[in-house]
């Protein structure tokens, strides 16, 4: 890439939003505290100065209204980007997300397009109080009509937010909040991948680890440890949780014969459940070991002093790697 810059995920999202707002005057940004403050994570910092209060504005603290009015604005021809301040605050908007936003294109037999992006900082690891560390992505992936994506690095953050805004379907955009400050190179010329493509982020031959969002870095750490133990791990960043690009996982598992899936959410009825079922079906004759899953536990997200025990880390991933290797 000729034109690259080093940015954190937070700054890359900010740059991507700025670019989308420059490119299309119909793009609006709103949510709680997004205007002057730039949001509690400063993702929208500086946008008010550049675009003014009719393009970016604070919403009242009313999540159903944030999503419901985004729907109305989309009906009017705008491309709203709504911010939900924290993962655990999205539930008051549940009806507007799953019964309204997700279904209006279908109910109208395609007459209504819903180019709405709902940004949700999600996941734990920041020592927060209750309701600030959750991983609700499976609710949305389970909902027909929604698309769900999660970038894991600055380059994806920059491009995926723009691609999500360009989508004519609603996109739930899950931002890995504990990785906001992680830096990386961002190529400014063109995106490497489409919004719903998975990517091999580290090639390997013995075990495939598939993960997304905040767990991709953890998966890469595990791969590094495994390397020192003589085990070659291929790491896949799923990137899109609905739809899921199974092809990349299938190709990898055909090569390695072993799959471990990792995410912060509890594993019961989760993204990893879906991937495990699909791979069992499509790669039955290639598997050397059962598909294993590494996730949080199926308990309410614990108090901050316990989150280290809750969150899967490289050691827990290695425990699963050891098990699939021992088969």
């Amino acid at each position, binding site marked *: 890439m000729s034109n690259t810059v080093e940015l954190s995920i937070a700054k890359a999202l900010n740059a991507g939003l700025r670019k989308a707002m420059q490119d299309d005057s119909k793009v609006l940004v709103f949510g709680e505290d997004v205007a002057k403050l730039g949001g509690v994570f400063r993702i929208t910092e500086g946008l008010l100065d550049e675009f003014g209060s009719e393009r970016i504005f604070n919403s009242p603290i009313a999540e159903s*209204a944030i999503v419901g009015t985004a729907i109305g604005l989309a009906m009017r021809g*705008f491309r709203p980007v709504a911010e939900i301040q924290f993962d655990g605050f999205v539930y008051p908007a549940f*009806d507007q997300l799953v019964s309204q936003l997700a279904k209006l294109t*279908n109910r109208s037999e395609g007459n209504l397009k819903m180019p709405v992006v709902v940004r949700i900082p999600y996941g734990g690891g920041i020592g927060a109080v209750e309701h600030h560390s959750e991983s609700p992505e499976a609710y949305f992936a389970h909902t027909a009509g929604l698309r769900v994506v999660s970038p894991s690095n600055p380059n994806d953050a920059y491009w995926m937010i723009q691609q999500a805004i360009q989508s*004519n379907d609603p996109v739930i955009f899950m931002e890995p909040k504990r990785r906001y400050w992680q830096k990386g190179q961002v190529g400014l010329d063109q995106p490497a991948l489409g919004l719903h493509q998975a990517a091999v982020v580290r090639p390997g031959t013995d075990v495939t680890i598939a993960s997304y969002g905040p767990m991709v870095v953890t998966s890469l750490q595990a791969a590094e440890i495994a390397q020192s133990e003589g085990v070659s791990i291929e790491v896949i960043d799923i990137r899109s949780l609905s739809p899921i690009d199974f092809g990349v996982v299938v190709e990898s598992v055909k090569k390695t014969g072993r799959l471990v899936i990792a995410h912060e959410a509890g594993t019961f009825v989760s993204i990893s459940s879906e991937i495990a079922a699909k791979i069992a079906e499509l790669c039955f004759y290639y598997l050397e070991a059962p598909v294993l899953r590494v996730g949080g536990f199926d308990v309410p997200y614990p108090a901050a002093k316990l989150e280290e025990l809750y969150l899967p880390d490289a050691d827990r991933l290695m425990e699963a790697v050891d098990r699939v290797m021992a088969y």
Partner: protein
Amino acid sequence: MVQFLNENGEFAVLSKEHEIYAQFIRDLREADFLKFYRDMAKIRRFDNEATALQRQGQMGLWVPAIGQEGAQIGSGHAVGPNDNIFPSYREHGVAITHGVDLMSIIKMFRGVNHGGWNPYEKKFHLYAIVLGAQTLHAAGYAMGVNFEGKVGTGDPNFDEAVITYFGDGATAEGDISEAFLMAATKNAPLVFFCQNNQWAISSAVETQTKVPLYKRGEGFGVPGIRVDGNDVLACYAVTKKHMDDARNGLGPYLIEALTYRIGAHTTSDDPSKYRDSEEVAYWQARDPIVRFEKFLRSQGIGQDFFDDVQAAGDQLAAEIRETTFALEEPTLELMFDHVYSEPHPLIEEQKAWLRGFEESLGGHTQANEGDDKVDYGGSR
């Protein structure tokens, strides 16, 4: 309460404060009055026919609007050609004031689709089933009208307003409070039109509110007024005034039309279990159509007109019946084709699988020939 026609159909402006509304009645011509009556009678006839079709097993459900014709036809005709309407699910009367094909509504309750009409065509949006949800869509839409600068320019052919309909029961939903708040803080050109038909299935209005509903918006900055919902002229005038005001940039307003649900909540409901027949009789005596007929007769409208309306209603009913019987069954494509507006691999895969499976059973489906063949791997 704003009322111009009493139950005997006698016209009077009872309060000086209501003069601001009465002027809109004086602007009306005889043709407008006849149109109001014709539409009310038409939608009543349609409603009865739809109920009969449901009773004969031709529809899964019907939601009659009987008794609410004054509120719906009066307000509907006050909505301008540039304005958008966000209804709940009982606004058949409002629909005809804007030329919506009544078969669209029949199809939905027959179970052929989930509505499916193009909301941009008549600016009449899809019926909303989850109570109150549409008021936020209306608020967002009206915010968009504001952002585009199509409010308060003084050009009635350019400026726009939005109206959203809901019932007394829906006012208890949080979405409506949030819609009041959004509309007020953004000064959105939005009229909230509440048809208080006094019953939310079996729950009386006292279950939903401690204050008169027209006052419900005040704390949010949305002033309100109560109008006699069984007086088509009052409903027209009050809606006209506040839609004009919204278009002129005066912000949101709440109208409570006090009316009565003469029929059941839906064809699945049995109102005799929870309300007295005396109460129903009281409101039947205040029927908006009967009342307006008295007014028209007092204005010299002769029997010929009413005979014509009756004949037109019978013809409409026959057409609705015939067209309903002729409705084609939906094909499996309808289930899959509009879930997303851009291609989605899972949906494509499942559609292809079901089509293949149905064909394997003997080709009973009306699947399109020639689409891409797929492998049937993958779970269903």
